[in-house]
Structures are given as structure tokens and as C-alpha cells.
């Protein structure tokens, strides 16, 4: 037995910090799980590693890297890598590119695995064998795990494992990962030294073979690419003519430049050369299946048919879909609320404790108003994220998600997105943060980026308090038919966000994110009972990932905002008020002292850096009808939009914890311009401000999570600039247009 503690050690650059020290001595054996999507690979991964797994990213890309630890019968502990689901080593998505790069040894941070466990669905052996043959051709040690063997037996499919082993040249094991069947055998097999397959399944026509051999000789010795992968690298280069970075980086420009000419020559000699190997493998598979598999004809899955007849029905399908989405939305919106309130209350109580334990001063203020408030903001998002991912995992694992995408594809296709963009966008009405995290189900990179960039346009729940304040202050409660003007205004603000999203998606798809039309192919998997373990692991992973990655950025920005709103202290007005407070206290007048305290808080904010930024912003926001006080609010609301409300309360001397929104509405309506004495905000200013809030990106958490999900600062910064420019222009149009028409 090893006494080494169970710590996970990931290579550098994997995006996850190791929790302990790197293990010394011989490198731990690495085993990779690989298979088609829906092969039950993740279920096997969870079963092998238990809860000892870590989720990170492959360096430089958004593809998720899942690594776990598994102890084998010999006592040896191995590292298990759950590679993204793939259909082919000829990649068509970022996930598949990663798989190819790992297997070819092109990724410096993830060396090729020592053993590959190929997970296949025993009920769909012929299609799943395609990837198996491709991987065996690489000549690496592999084990084939015939997963879901129970379902295959139930369907009357009999697989001769020995015959299959003979034909494939590697060990074949029957397992049922969800039931834990056969896992002992698999673990024992993983303990052994595995020989790579010596069979050759690849049938290239002569001209292609010559081209591959020619290329191979021109490839230099590459540091990370094993000698035996050179042939595979040459094939990958020949077949790939896209924008494949890792591959292009791996070879010198001279070789790359020669490729188009080689391809052109092959096109002339044999127009079908690029597909020849595909047909060759399927011929081989037909041979293998004939020998090793006995299946009772084309039996139909009647349960599936019956469910699908309802769920994808012309009328019931969309109705059920909308009801389900309504339930998901309502849950994220409403169910999370008690948990969020509880977290809020706990954080509040904790702040009070810290306040009581520490003397008043900069340290107490930094802890309470900066750090605890910042960490608190981060934690309050967790209930929404957890609930949304509970539903998403359930919908994914049961197989419904694919049907939802099938139903919605036509509509989402109109703005150039795929059906899978619907759930992230819907969730964004509750909060853009879980929404952006949910875009992981979109496999096309451009579709995913577009969805991330338009998600914050959906009016989230944090905008509601601001809308409520401004509508209450400026929109008269007039009935228009069966509805009220405030109701119509609220609806219009939601519609405005959606319209902006459609417009931006349309524009992005034609400019920055234009590209060859992506292929939409989606497998509609059979319906399955979800495993609670997988669902809970997904919920846990998402929550932890958010806290770790977005949380650090949110905390940093919170501290900066705290500093800006608290310093410098002791401006002229604040000094005067502090003196007056002392006088009032000495005179024994607590009411006057309390009023002065609120005025002091207001004065401190007005005289702080944030106040100065508000003043400095005035020339920029004056054309929108906003003054410096709103400017301060726009700055502080970057911590969270609803902070706008408490900032306004402080600016207008109502105290930070004003529980009387009515009085704040009144105060804002009656606010005067300190220099002219005229009313500062007309209803038109209110409308302009609402439009600004509907469109602007003023949420550091959204920026932080977009940074984490796109793995670069480029897109979140683009989002920030694009949304705020759009908000400015729209508010400008509303305010100046309104003035031209004689309002305000």
C-alpha cells in the first residue's frame, strides 16, 4: 500500500493548480478514456475515479480537461484522463482537435497516454468501431471496453469477445459502467503491460500512400511528437486544410507551403482520395461485425419511438419544450432566491461579527465592505449556477437536450445559431453567469462565442431592482386597456435586450465570427435514466469552477471598487460633517447625529475617487441626460447592477441600508441640480437610464466568467466595449430624440 496522500497533480498550464506537491520518483502511469459521445465514457470515468477528479482546461483553449485518480488491484495508482467525446481523429470541433493533438503528442502540457481505453457502445458496435480502428492504427497500447453490454444482451445482441480480440489485436472487455459490471476486470487489465495492435486497417490508394511517405521524410524531428506518430502527423497534415493551429505550429512553414500542391495533384489523380480511408474502414468493420457479432436484425427501440412520437410531435413537442423551459427558468429565477437570501443574511451577519471584533478603521472597512462583500457577491451566484446545471445535466443525461436542440434549430438558425444556444440564452434572463457557463453544450466554436457575447443582453434579475426603482420614480401608473404603463415599460426593456441580441448575433455572424458554414450533425441518443452521481458531479464541478476562476477576478474588482468609493477620506464637506456629528452627540441629539451620519456617508462617497470619476464622466454622459451622481452609480454598479440602488441611496444621503424604496423614488424624482436648482431628472432621463441599463455591460462577474469561458481577455473586452457603446448610442438616441420631440 502506498502511503502517499491522494493528491491530484496536473501538468503546468492545465489551468488547475495542484493541491499538493508533485509526486517524486517514476512518473505515474497515464490512462486515457476515449470514445464517441454517448458511449458512456463519462459514466465509466466517474465509476473508475469516484469523486477524486479535477476539472481544468487544456492550455490556451476552452476545451475541458478532466483528470482523475484510480487505484488498481496491484496497489498502483494511475492518472485517468477523460478525453472529450469524439467521432473521428480527423477533427471537426475544438474538442476533437484536442483529442488528436493529445494522441499525436502535439500538446506539451499533456503527453500521450500510456494506455488508451476505447469505450464503445456495445449496442452500436459498427459505428463505434470506426474510431477504434483509427486509434488502433496509431499503434499505441489500447484496451477496448464494450460498454452497455447489459443493454446489448437485452436487445439480443451477442458479441464474441475472443473473435473481436483476434481481429483488433488488443484486449476486449465487456462492461456495464452504469451498473459497475466488469470494472474489476478492466482495472486488472489496466494493471498489465498492454501491447499495441499490430493489425493494419488503413487502406490508402497508392498515390496517397506515396504522398504520405514523401511528407513523412520532410518532417523534422519534433520534441514532443513520438517517432512512431510521424506517419499519423503526415496524414493529419495532408487531410487538414483548415485553420488548425497546433498542427500548423508543429511543422515548419516550408512543409506547410507545399501541401496545397500535393493535395491538388491527388485531386487530379483520384477525386475521392480524401474519403478513401473512411470507406476502407467501414469495409473492414463490416468484416469484423460479420465474424464477431450476432444481432437479431434491425430491431427497433419501441420505447424510444413512443417517447419521441410525443416529445418531437409537431404540436406537443414545442408545447412540452416551452413548458419545460418555463419550469427551468422559473426554478433558476425563484428557487434560487431563498438560498441566495440565506447566503446574503449569513454574509451580513458575518460582516457584523467582523465589524464588532475589529476597531473601526481602514482594515475593518476593507474586510467588511471590500473583501467580504466581494466574496459574498461571488457566493450568491452559486445557487443559480447549481440549479441551472442540475437541470442541464438531467436534460443532457436523459437525452432530452438533443431533442430540444432538434426542435429549436430552425428558429435559432435564423440568427445563425444552433438549437443548443436556446437554453444558455433563456438562463441568461435569470443571470448571464450560469447562462454563459451553459454555452459549453454548444460544440461549434463560433456559435458558442456568439452566444456568450449576446447572453448579457438578456435582461437579468439584477437589472430588476434598478428597473423597479426607475419605473417607480418616473413612469406614471396609467392603465392602457388591460395593462399598465409600468408593465409595458418593463416588457419593452426585455424586448429591447432581445432585439439587441438578435442584431448583434446577426452582425457577428457576418463579420468577426464569419466562417465556413459549420456542419450541423447531432446524434439523437436513446433515452436513459440519468445517474445521480453524474448529475451531482456536474453540479459540483460547475460551482467549484465558478468560485475558483470567476471568484478571484470578482474579488479583485470588488477591492478596487471599495478603494475608489472609500478614498480619499477627509474632504472639506466630510470634515465639516464629522465636526457637526461630534457637536450633535455632545448635545445629546441622536436623531440629528443619525441624519448627519447619513450625510457624512454621502459626502464621503461624493468626495471619493469614485465621486471624482462620476464628475469626470459627466461630459461623456451629459448627452444622455445623466449627471455626475448617476455617473457614480454607473461606476459602482459594475460590482453588481443592483448596487446602483444602494449607491443612489448613499449619494442622496438616505444611508446605505435604506429599506424605504418609496422614499428613494421620491428623492430621485425631486432631486435638483445643485447649481441651477432646477429638477435634475425628467422622466426622459429616467427612460434614457433604463435603456442604458438594458444594454450596457456593467457587471464584472459577467466579464470575469466570459474571460474564464473564452480563455482570453480579447472577447470579454470586446463584449464590454461593444455593449457599452451600443448602450450609449441607444440612450443618446432616446434622450436627444425625446428632447427634439419636446419631452423632458
Amino acid at each position: 500500500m502506498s502511503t502517499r496522500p491522494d493528491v491530484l497533480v496536473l501538468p503546468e498550464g492545465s489551468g488547475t493548480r495542484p493541491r499538493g506537491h508533485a509526486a517524486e520518483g517514476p512518473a505515474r502511469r497515464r490512462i486515457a478514456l476515449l470514445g464517441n459521445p454517448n458511449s458512456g465514457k463519462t459514466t465509466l470515468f466517474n465509476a473508475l475515479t469516484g469523486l477524486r477528479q479535477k476539472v481544468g482546461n487544456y492550455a490556451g483553449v476552452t476545451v475541458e480537461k478532466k483528470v482523475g485518480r484510480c487505484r488498481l488491484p496491484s496497489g498502483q495508482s494511475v492518472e485517468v484522463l477523460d478525453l472529450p467525446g469524439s467521432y473521428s481523429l480527423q477533427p471537426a470541433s475544438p474538442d476533437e482537435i484536442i483529442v488528436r493533438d493529445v494522441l499525436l503528442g502535439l500538446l506539451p502540457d499533456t503527453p500521450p497516454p500510456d494506455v488508451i481505453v476505447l469505450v464503445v457502445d456495445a449496442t452500436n458496435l459498427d459505428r463505434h468501431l470506426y474510431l477504434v480502428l483509427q486509434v488502433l492504427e496509431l499503434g499505441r497500447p489500447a484496451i477496448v471496453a464494450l460498454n452497455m453490454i447489459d443493454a446489448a444482451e437485452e436487445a439480443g445482441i451477442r458479441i464474441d469477445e475472443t473473435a473481436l480480440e483476434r481481429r483488433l489485436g488488443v484486449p476486449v472487455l465487456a462492461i456495464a459502467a452504469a451498473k459497475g459490471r466488469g470494472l474489476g476486470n478492466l482495472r486488472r487489465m489496466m494493471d498489465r503491460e498492454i501491447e499495441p495492435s499490430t493489425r493494419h486497417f488503413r487502406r490508402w490508394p497508392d498515390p496517397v500512400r506515396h504522398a504520405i511517405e514523401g511528407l513523412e521524410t520532410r518532417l523534422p524531428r519534433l520534441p514532443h511528437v513520438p517517432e512512431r506518430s510521424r506517419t499519423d502527423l503526415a496524414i493529419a497534415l495532408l487531410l487538414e486544410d483548415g485553420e488548425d493551429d497546433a498542427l500548423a505550429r508543429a511543422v515548419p512553414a516550408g512543409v506547410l507551403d507545399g501541401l496545397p500542391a500535393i493535395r491538388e495533384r491527388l485531386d487530379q489523380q483520384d477525386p475521392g482520395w480524401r474519403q478513401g480511408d473512411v470507406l476502407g474502414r467501414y469495409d473492414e468493420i463490416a468484416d469484423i461485425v460479420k465474424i464477431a457479432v450476432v444481432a437479431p436484425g434491425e430491431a427497433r427501440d419501441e420505447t424510444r419511438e413512443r417517447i419521441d412520437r410525443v416529445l418531437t410531435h409537431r404540436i406537443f413537442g414545442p408545447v412540452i419544450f416551452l413548458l419545460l423551459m418555463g419550469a427551468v427558468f422559473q426554478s433558476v429565477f425563484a428557487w434560487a432566491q431563498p438560498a441566495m437570501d440565506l447566503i446574503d443574511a449569513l454574509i451580513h451577519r458575518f460582516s457584523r461579527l467582523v465589524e464588532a471584533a475589529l476597531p473601526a478603521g481602514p482594515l475593518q472597512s476593507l474586510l467588511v465592505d471590500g473583501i467580504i462583500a466581494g466574496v459574498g457577491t461571488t457566493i450568491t451566484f452559486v445557487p443559480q449556477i447549481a440549479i441551472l446545471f442540475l437541470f442541464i445535466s438531467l436534460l443532457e443525461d436523459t437525452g432530452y437536450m438533443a431533442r430540444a436542440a432538434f426542435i429549436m434549430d430552425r428558429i435559432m438558425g435564423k440568427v445563425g445559431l444552433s438549437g443548443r444556444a436556446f437554453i444558455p440564452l433563456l438562463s441568461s434572463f435569470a443571470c448571464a453567469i450560469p447562462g454563459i457557463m451553459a454555452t459549453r453544450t454548444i460544440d461549434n466554436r463560433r456559435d458558442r462565442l456568439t452566444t456568450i457575447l449576446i447572453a448579457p443582453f438578456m435582461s437579468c434579475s439584477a437589472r430588476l431592482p434598478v428597473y423597479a426603482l426607475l419605473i417607480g420614480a418616473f413612469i406614471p401608473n396609467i392603465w392602457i386597456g388591460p395593462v399598465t404603463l409600468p408593465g409595458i415599460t418593463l416588457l419593452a426593456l426585455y424586448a429591447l435586450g432581445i432585439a439587441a441580441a438578435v442584431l448583434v448575433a446577426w452582425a457577428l455572424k457576418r463579420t468577426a465570427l464569419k466562417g465556413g458554414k459549420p456542419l450541423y450533425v447531432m446524434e439523437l441518443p436513446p433515452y436513459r435514466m440519468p445517474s445521480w452521481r453524474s448529475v451531482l458531479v456536474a453540479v459540483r464541478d460547475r460551482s467549484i469552477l465558478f468560485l475558483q476562476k470567476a471568484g478571484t477576478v470578482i474579488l479583485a474588482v470588488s477591492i478596487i471598487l471599495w478603494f475608489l468609493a472609500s478614498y480619499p477620506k477627509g474632504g472639506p464637506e466630510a470634515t465639516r460633517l464629522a465636526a457637526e456629528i461630534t457637536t450633535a452627540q455632545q448635545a445629546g441629539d441622536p436623531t440629528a447625529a443619525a441624519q448627519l451620519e447619513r450625510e457624512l456617508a454621502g459626502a464621503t462617497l461624493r468626495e471619493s475617487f469614485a465621486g471624482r470619476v462620476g464628475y469626470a464622466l459627466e461630459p461623456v454622459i451629459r448627452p444622455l441626460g445623466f449627471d455626475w451622481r448617476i455617473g457614480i452609480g454607473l461606476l459602482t454598479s459594475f460590482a453588481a447592477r443592483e448596487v446602483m440602488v444602494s449607491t443612489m441611496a448613499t449619494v442622496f444621503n438616505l444611508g446605505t441600508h435604506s429599506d424605504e424604496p418609496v422614499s428613494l423614488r421620491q428623492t430621485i424624482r425631486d432631486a435638483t441640480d445643485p447649481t441651477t436648482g432646477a429638477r435634475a431628472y425628467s422622466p426622459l432621463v429616467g427612460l434614457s437610464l433604463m435603456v442604458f441599463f438594458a444594454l450596457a455591460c456593467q457587471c464584472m462577474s459577467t466579464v470575469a466568467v466570459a474571460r474564464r469561458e473564452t480563455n482570453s481577455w480579447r472577447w470579454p473586452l470586446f463584449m464590454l466595449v461593444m455593449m457599452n457603446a451600443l448602450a450609449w448610442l441607444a440612450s443618446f438616441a432616446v434622450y436627444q430624440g425625446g428632447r427634439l420631440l419636446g419631452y423632458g
Partner: protein
Amino acid sequence: MTYPTLDQLAPGQCAVVVSVGGPVAIARRLMELGLAPGTPVELVRLAPLGDPLELRVRRIHLSIRRSEARHIRVDAT
């Protein structure tokens, strides 16, 4: 005689793939997913709005758009 394309089948109708055309990368991927010439295929149903299509090929259900199905010729006899 020219063969009909996959999107011209009626829901529930079966056929055999004759050829897969269109952009090379897309044709290759469709073949890798099992839609290779000689493979039996069934058009199971259309999505509620008429697009995409649900296919059944090698016991697997695939969903592809009409725009891709137009490049796949099938023998429906």
C-alpha cells in the same frame, strides 16, 4: 436516371445511400458518422418546423439539416 436526394424522402421511408456530395470536409464527416455509400438509411421524421431531419442509420439516430441532406443521393427503390 438521377437518384433522389435524402431530403426528398417521405417520413418513415427507407433508402440506400448512393453518394455523398457537397463540401469535401462535410461529406467526409457525414461518411464517418456512418452515412457511407451502400448504407441503408431511414428518414424517421422532420422537426416540428420542417427542418432539421431525423435519420436512422446503423441503429443510430442522426439529425442533419436539409441543406446537407440535399447533397446525399439515395436509392429509394
